[in-house]
């Protein structure tokens, strides 16, 4: 009897303590998100996270896909193929009817390219997931691929490419990429002038791509929402089980970025000058990713960043300034800082950006700078993990970066483990003074340029400094 009462007292105390704790404390006590990672009966890798409070189910998918990189004359396929699949409809239902059926269900289905994969989502109420899965299956297995839709998409893409070559920020970005990549095969991604790579794509090319890429072996699926793992497995097998087992997996393209240490000015009659500077880096987004995010936020992420304060608040020269690291190719990244500044302040702004970067490299970040950002990151991640679409997207990102499926469980621990010292070590290791600077501005006067051109086409004439 005494033992019974003691057990009840303990039980009651535990219950009461759970009830009186504030909600965020209860949340923090959770031991992970309960993410599971296993193959379905149909052999498809499925990562599952149960979000009981959500009224939306998200199925996020990704197929490894380097197919078009090995077919440069048809490079436009990487955007055109997923677009045509989604807009063209199936053999039994045209694209417009499918779109309207999905709206009736309250479901969104999308498919798009990534750097080395094709990814997409199916998002909607759990009660209609089976109906929407049937539609997605039709689109993937029996696509209509209407030539007229393809022609429209091609025209839109060609027009977009031509127009992008006239916009200030994209001129700077394209020139920067071309100078880093040179004439290596990967440069095709940035050499947009070859419009035949878009115009030559045919419906047969799209169908070949579909059969080669959309398979089960290279497919990763993340299910996030109120659906149980068992139901999600069934849904995934019903949707994707009819795909061929094996994809035609292509190899990575060889790539070694160049490190041109030079200042290139593209003279254009622009309203506002763009300054873009940076260099290739191997500062990765996985093991070093959290430190990288913290470093870039301190340097140029938001209204507390050093570049924002220096260029906007002290000089009044710009509306904003950004710093970031983005993917060039597997294992190779591009560090850059950028600002659109007043034409009459471009010389001073360039000097200020260089000084801030020098200080950043030499002094690094402080605990006072990164600690608040860490708190913001933790809160932001927790909020994102409550929503099915963002939780699925985060987990899929981990999978695509070859991280464990339950990587999200250790997020807080990993963020808290990052110190100013560890960030500064990585800054010293990965950032250098060997900067490539591209400036688009009306006049190169005062900018000590190594190369001055007037168009993107002439960038190749700029010789690298030894």
């Amino acid at each position: 009897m005494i033992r019974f009462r003691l057990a009840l007292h303990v039980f009651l105390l535990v219950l009461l303590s759970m009830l009186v704790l504030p909600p965020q404390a209860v949340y923090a006590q959770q031991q992970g998100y309960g993410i599971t990672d296993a193959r379905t009966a149909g052999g498809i890798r499925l990562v599952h996270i149960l979000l009981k409070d959500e009224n939306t189910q998200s199925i996020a998918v990704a197929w490894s896909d380097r197919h078009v990189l090995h077919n440069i004359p048809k490079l436009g396929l990487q955007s055109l193929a997923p677009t045509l699949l989604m807009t063209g409809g199936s053999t039994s239902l045209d694209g417009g009817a499918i779109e309207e059926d999905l709206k009736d269900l309250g479901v969104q289905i999308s498919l798009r390219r990534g750097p080395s994969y094709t990814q997409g989502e199916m998002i909607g109420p759990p009660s209609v997931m089976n109906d929407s899965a049937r539609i997605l299956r039709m689109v993937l297995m029996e696509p209509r691929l209407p030539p007229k839709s393809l022609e429209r998409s091609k025209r839109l893409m060609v027009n977009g490419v031509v127009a992008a070559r006239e916009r200030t920020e994209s001129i700077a970005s394209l020139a920067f990429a071309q100078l880093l990549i040179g004439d290596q095969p990967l440069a095709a991604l940035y050499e947009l002038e070859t419009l035949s790579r878009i115009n030559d794509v045919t419906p047969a090319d799209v169908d070949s791509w579909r059969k080669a890429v959309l398979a089960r072996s290279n497919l990763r699926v993340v299910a996030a929402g109120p659906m149980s793992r068992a139901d999600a497995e069934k849904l995934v097998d019903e949707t994707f089980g009819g795909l061929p087992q094996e994809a035609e997996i292509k190899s990575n393209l060889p790539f070694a970025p160049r490190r041109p240490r030079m200042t290139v000015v593209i003279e254009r009659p622009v309203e506002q000058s763009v300054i873009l500077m940076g260099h290739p880096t191997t500062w990765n987004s996985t093991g070093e990713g959290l430190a990288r995010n913290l470093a870039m936020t301190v340097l140029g992420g938001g209204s507390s960043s050093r570049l924002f304060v220096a260029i906007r608040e002290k000089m009044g020269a710009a509306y904003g300034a950004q710093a970031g690291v983005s993917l060039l190719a597997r294992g190779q990244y591009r560090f850059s800082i950028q600002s659109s500044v007043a034409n009459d302040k471009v010389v001073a702004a360039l000097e200020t950006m260089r000084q801030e970067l020098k200080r950043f490299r030499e002094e690094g970040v402080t605990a006072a700078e990164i600690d608040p950002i860490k708190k913001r990151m933790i809160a932001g991640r927790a909020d994102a993990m409550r929503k099915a679409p963002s939780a699925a997207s985060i987990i899929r990102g981990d999978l695509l970066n070859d991280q464990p499926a339950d990587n999200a469980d250790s997020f807080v621990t990993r963020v808290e483990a990052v110190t100013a010292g560890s960030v500064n070590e990585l800054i010293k290791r990965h950032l250098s003074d060997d900067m490539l600077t591209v400036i688009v501005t009306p006049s190169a006067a005062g900018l000590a340029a190594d190369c001055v051109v007037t168009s993107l086409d002439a960038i190749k004439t700029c010789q690298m400094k030894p």
Partner: protein
Amino acid sequence: MGLSRAVVMATVSACLAILAFVLVQPAQALERLVRDRVFLVPDPKAQSINFQMLVLAGCADEAGNDCKGIAHYLEHLVLVGRNAENRESAMRFFSDGNSNGYTTSRVTGYTHQFPAAAPDVADRLDRLFGFYAARLKGFEISPEDAVRERNVVMQEYNWRYGSSPYAATGREVSRFLYPDHPLGQPVIGSPELISAFSVEASRAFLERWYKLSNVYFILSGPVDEAQLRTIADRHLNGLEMSPPPAREWVRTPPRLAQEQRSFRHEDRRIAETTVTISRAIPFNDSDRLKTLAATLVLNEFLRSKLKGSPHSVLVEQDGIASGMRGASVRRFMDGVLTTSIGATPEPEISVERLTTAMQSYMDQLSERGLDEATVERLKRRFAQSYERSLADPQRAPGRLIDWLGENLPYERLKDTPAIVAAVTAADINALLKAQNTPGRQATVVFAPKVTQ
């Protein structure tokens, strides 16, 4: 003294019931009016707390019924000024948070977000209310900061509009459709107007419109309601509650004398040719909410690919357009209805032919109207989507802010599903017929500039 088994079992049962309720209860989505002008969207599981002060005044409320950009400049000054309540720029109100502002023709908003796990949540809310309560009386800005911020606004203008191939023509079109009316003028101003911005004009705007009776505070997150009420009362009680002046632009709709004009702009930065027909026409209704609900359903049709929609006729059936670039009907303000339809022509189709086809489509649509079955289908979509959004506390603040920003009566927000459910095909078809009223019409062509 020991517990009797019955009491123990009852207590255990009660605890289990409460625990079960806590675990399965969907997050509360509906806002609570904590006190006059202060709303809370409770979201116990959120990890961030969001705060917004919404001012029911934007550039259309500037002096002389003339939007010059002062409301937007004031937003910048409030956020960068070093005031007694917060010596740091309000852009950095909390080092671990985010802060921002926005200005439209009709409203100005100030937003802040910070982690809910912060140990000093009450203190932070106290500081925010203290800061904004003081802003309802005035603001501080040094002459140097004011000049510098003017330059920042100029760069914002260049970044957003100066380099846009559409901006200059878009501005001309707005001025034509809504002549001599502030809603037809750009919120940010123009380079000439920005150069002439003054702190005095900003102060005058603040004095006129930044009143407790003309602002709302909207919070969301795991915030204790009673504590919030205490904090809000502490700072807002005693503030002047005199009503704001009547909004001049609301009482004076633009003069919509019948006129048609064509606009054309070619630019290398434009990717594809688009043709848009926009109309501003006189329109009177007796029930604003009913009109809003009807436009909501109608716009879902105009954006769709359903049979009879612009896409199904102009793109699929007639092959005139390669894609639609938007179609909508909007109750622009009291007395004004705006319609717009845009498309990209197929390569072999001239701009003129597409223009005629779009005009003809809209005429025929207003003649034929929508059938009851289509309207019911569109209403079902809205009802499903709205019901799901009601269970989502992260979407509730946006819905509330949009509603309040339109100066709609808060007590009617809850009626939205019923109002939409009551819309009939006849309501929508009356709206479609109304667009035949003579008014102002702009035909706008944007085209790529082709060099030989």
